[in-house]
């Protein structure tokens, strides 16, 4: 079976800024691909091209077998898109918003109304369905926006940062809804800045930076790529950080990361627990007071840092300011 989403060498420029620089993607039917990267990495531009909102300057892409440029109009019947800015009408009720989408999908008035009710129920919006969206919370809006993307039962779904700006509870609620969809066999392309979100929802993760994919794999594969476990050590006296780096250098199998503000050092090591014992013994011999010591699996943050040399979320915050 051909992949539901294929992108080959997509390029998009805005004046001198290169938003996409050879983006390649392939998403098998019924799977979830997470596009993980900071703001400005090209995630949204990719989604805008794949949902026919933008034309690429070079490269080509197909979604559900339709070319995103040549077959744009037919393609639109086969996709649903939900963006980071909930595209719902404030003055319309939840039901009216969904009915409108149904009619614009040419489902007919009766079917559009039925579908709106089904979706409101599914997204736990039945009681709010006849109220104008103006009074909805952020989480309710996102759910309604997601419901809008599902009106025509599309086989391929694009979710552009579906939980950005939501509080943890609303985020968890939306995650449940998305997980449910995926079990139903929908192909999903999800963009996110949150490692946790990609870890939780995506079958495979494509790490994106500067407009192209720099790493691709399951969350575990990516974590393995950056080496095994990490020792994190917090010292009482920040002046000891240099000593810690010197003493632990022989144990490190990759780049050590020092966070002077937290008096912390993270060291990738080969054989976890044994290395931790060795490290603590060596530091005791040097009379370094260790406040906290631990061993952990690499997180996607570590993956990102190792691959790009900058942190995803931190970078994102700077961009959005």
């Amino acid at each position, binding site marked *: 079976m051909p992949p539901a989403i294929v992108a080959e060498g997509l390029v998009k420029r805005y004046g001198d800024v290169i938003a996409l620089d050879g983006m390649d993607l392939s998403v098998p039917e019924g799977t979830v691909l997470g596009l993980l990267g900071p703001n400005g990495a090209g995630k949204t531009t990719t989604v805008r091209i794949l949902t026919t909102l933008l034309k690429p300057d070079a490269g080509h892409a197909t979604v559900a077998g339709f070319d995103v440029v040549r077959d744009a109009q037919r393609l639109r019947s086969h996709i649903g898109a939900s963006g980071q800015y*909930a595209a719902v*009408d404030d*003055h319309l009720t939840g039901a009216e918003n969904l009915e409108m*989408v149904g009619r614009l999908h*040419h489902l007919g008035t009766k079917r559009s109304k039925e579908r709106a009710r089904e979706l409101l129920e599914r997204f736990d919006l039945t009681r709010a369905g006849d109220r*104008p969206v103006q009074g909805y919370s952020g989480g309710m809006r996102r759910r309604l926006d997601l419901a809008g993307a599902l009106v025509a039962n599309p086989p391929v779904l694009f979710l552009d940062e579906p939980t950005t700006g939501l509080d943890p509870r609303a985020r968890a609620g939306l995650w449940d809804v998305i997980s449910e969809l995926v079990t139903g066999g929908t192909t999903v392309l999800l963009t996110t800045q949150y490692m946790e979100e990609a870890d939780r929802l995506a079958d495979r993760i494509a790490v994106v930076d500067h407009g192209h994919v720099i790493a691709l794999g399951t969350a575990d594969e990516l974590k393995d790529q950056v080496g095994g476990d990490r020792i994190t050590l917090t010292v009482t006296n920040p002046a000891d950080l240099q000593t810690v780096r010197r003493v632990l250098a022989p144990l490190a199998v990759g780049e050590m990361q020092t966070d002077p503000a937290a008096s912390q050092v993270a060291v990738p090591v080969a054989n976890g627990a044994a290395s931790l014992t060795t490290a603590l013994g060596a530091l005791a011999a040097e009379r370094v007071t260790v406040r906290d010591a631990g061993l952990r699996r690499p997180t996607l943050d570590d993956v990102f840092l190792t691959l790009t040399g900058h942190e995803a979320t931190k970078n994102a915050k700077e961009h959005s300011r």
Partner: protein
Amino acid sequence: MNALQTAIADGMTITKRNTLKIKRAPDQLGGVIILPIVFVLLFAYVFGSMIDIPGMSYQEYMIPGIFVQTVVMSAQITGYTLVLDLQKGIFDRFRTLPMAPSAVLTGQTISDVLMNVSSIIAMSVMGLIVGWRIHSAPHEAVLGFLLLLLFAYAFSWVTATVALALRTPEVFNNIATVVSMPLVFLSNAFVDSARLPGPLKVVAEWNPVSTIIQATRELFGNTDPAMPVPGAWPLRHAVTASLLWSALILAVFVPLATRLYKKAVGR
């Protein structure tokens, strides 16, 4: 459904959406109903007590002017709504749907015609109260109202074009006011353009707003043989000229607005 049927059905869906929005946010409706009522009263009693129009009361003279002034002003809502929608991302949702792309603009402009209908009704009632009367045959009066709505529709495409070119609500509002005020006041809306000095007179007589006002006056029978005959061609053939103006505006601004819409959303 073929392409035309789709375009019509989708246009109706968007019209319904915009009409619901107007119903739920009556602040705009208030603007296009209450403001004209205030204008009717102010002009009828302040200017009405000072300005003499040969052969008829000032009230009868100025009501067609207020009609046209109001449709010009409320056309700004078309533009303003478009810019707001543009900023909210709702057009992105529309553009991922298999709908006719033209429906966004036709739906917006048609719903504004519906809004104009309600504001013309309000003004007519107010006009009747202050002494305005229709003196023509019923079919002429109907034509008068239709001509007003046609011009209103055409003018909505002008503001849509300006809005899509500017793309910022505040900037649009300022520019729209700065342009529409002289357009309305440099006309025969409230004074006899024939009595304006030199260059102002030329501008006022060739102003399309004057043409529409003259045509509605004729169609409502709000003219009098005692009034001086206007010199400029569009004023002597006001109904024909109004149709020509409306057709010309549509021919220029429909394609222009459509192009700018595509450019504004495709970035």
